[in-house]
């Protein structure tokens, strides 16, 4: 592995630093399964947000369903607040093609019409295929296309980043 990866905990602290000045009473937060939920939980706690955290599994909204079928472990989505007119910070671990975010935004709109959605990600690795941008970013990284950037959570809750060679993993 020729790419030294940044420390996920450091990036998380960076993200919290960016979000602290804009945190307010009516800020809602939604994490995308699975890595996005881990990060959202930590940010939600650090900012002391009052509105309970929402979680999304975007499997039912993916655009590659007809190619790869349904993900075998779909988790329930739950937005435990009134989405209509809410101000949402959407949180994910890695922003890449933008397709996951497209699916998440579509799913949120099936719960109601939010006043705004802003995006916070731990890592932006570029290579977008859709016109989507994050407002809050822990770090921008450039990585080879055959590598998957994966967020891991240790037993003590500590987060770390790892690279997975997609070709090797498939074999």
């Amino acid at each position, binding site marked *: 592995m020729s790419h030294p990866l940044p420390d996920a905990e450091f990036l998380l602290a960076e993200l919290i630093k960016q979000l602290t000045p804009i945190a307010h009473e009516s800020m809602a937060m939604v994490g995308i399964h699975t890595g996005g939920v881990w990060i959202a939980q930590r940010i939600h706690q650090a900012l002391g947000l009052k509105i309970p955290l929402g979680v999304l*599994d975007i*499997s*039912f*909204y993916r655009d590659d*369903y*007809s190619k*790869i*079928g*349904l993900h*075998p*472990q*779909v*988790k*329930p*989505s*739950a937005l435990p607040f009134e*989405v*209509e007119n809410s101000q949402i910070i959407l949180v994910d671990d890695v922003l890449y093609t933008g397709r996951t975010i497209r699916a998440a935004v*579509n*799913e949120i*709109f*099936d*719960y*109601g019409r939010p006043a705004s959605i802003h995006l916070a990600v731990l890592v932006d690795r570029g290579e977008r295929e859709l016109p989507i941008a994050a407002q809050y970013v822990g770090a921008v990284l450039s990585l080879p296309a055959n590598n998957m950037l994966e967020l891991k959570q240790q037993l003590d809750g500590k987060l770390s980043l790892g690279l997975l060679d997609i070709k090797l993993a498939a074999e």
Partner: protein
Amino acid sequence: MNHQLQLSKNGELLHLLTIEGLPTAILTQILDTAESFTGVTEREIKKIPLLRGKSIFNLFFEPSTRTRTTFEIAAKRLSADVLNLNIAVSAQSKGEALLDTVNNLSAMHADMFVVRHSQSGAAHMIASHVKPEIHVINAGDGRHAHPTQALLDMFTIRRYKHDFHNLRVAIVGDILHSRVARSQIHALSTLGVPEIRVIAPKTLLPNKVERLGVHVYHDMEKGLCDVDVVIMLRLQNERMLGANLPSNEEYFKYYGLTPEKLAKAKPDAIVMHPGPMNRGVEIDSVVADGKQSVILPQVTFGIAVRMAVMSILAGN
């Protein structure tokens, strides 16, 4: 019947024809996926775009309101286009053969068939006939199988009892004519229920039913003793033809679920029924509408379970 028809070489579900022979992992996958779908109903927009652009044909060669409706709602919540064909009153009465009907609908680019038929094996026959990209769901065939009903029953049991591995389940009534009972027994044993009882008069039990791994009781009070789940079956009057029973009143006396008989089960036992109920024949209204009854939740869960089956099949 070739049960392997429903699985691909890689073990993916292509058709849902029967529970028999399906691995535990697939049953669990369906139940877990259904769990995620239960939330869709509580949203502002009760629809997800998963099956947008797919055409699902409900082929009902035998009347059914509840099953057809829940399949229709499930398909619509997934954004599929649904066509209901009650074939008893359409081309079949003009003498069109089953496979001709299927060929015609396939020519209209159907993606999935949901089939209910009075002949055992009808869904199998269609599944072995259609092109590989078309999926078939058995919504009840003769006395053979009714897999989605069994799955929604398993979903209900898991919701209320959480774990299958320490349960005692009693199925009561017309086991002989019941495709539901057969599918339930396969599902319960695949999911690891250690004790399955069937309670019925001899005339309503299939020969050698013990081979399915069930314990047979003819006395309902003994059979219900300490069970966690009571599944009542409908007395299938339309399938009796000549009847093996003296009368409905006589049946109710011995095999109708009354509060007194239910008291033999565990105090937190749940009561299930696949519907439609014959009140006062196999079940007392007091029990059907009582605290332990989960008969209406079963109907609600049926939608999520059918959404799960459809979305898994259409993706494979």
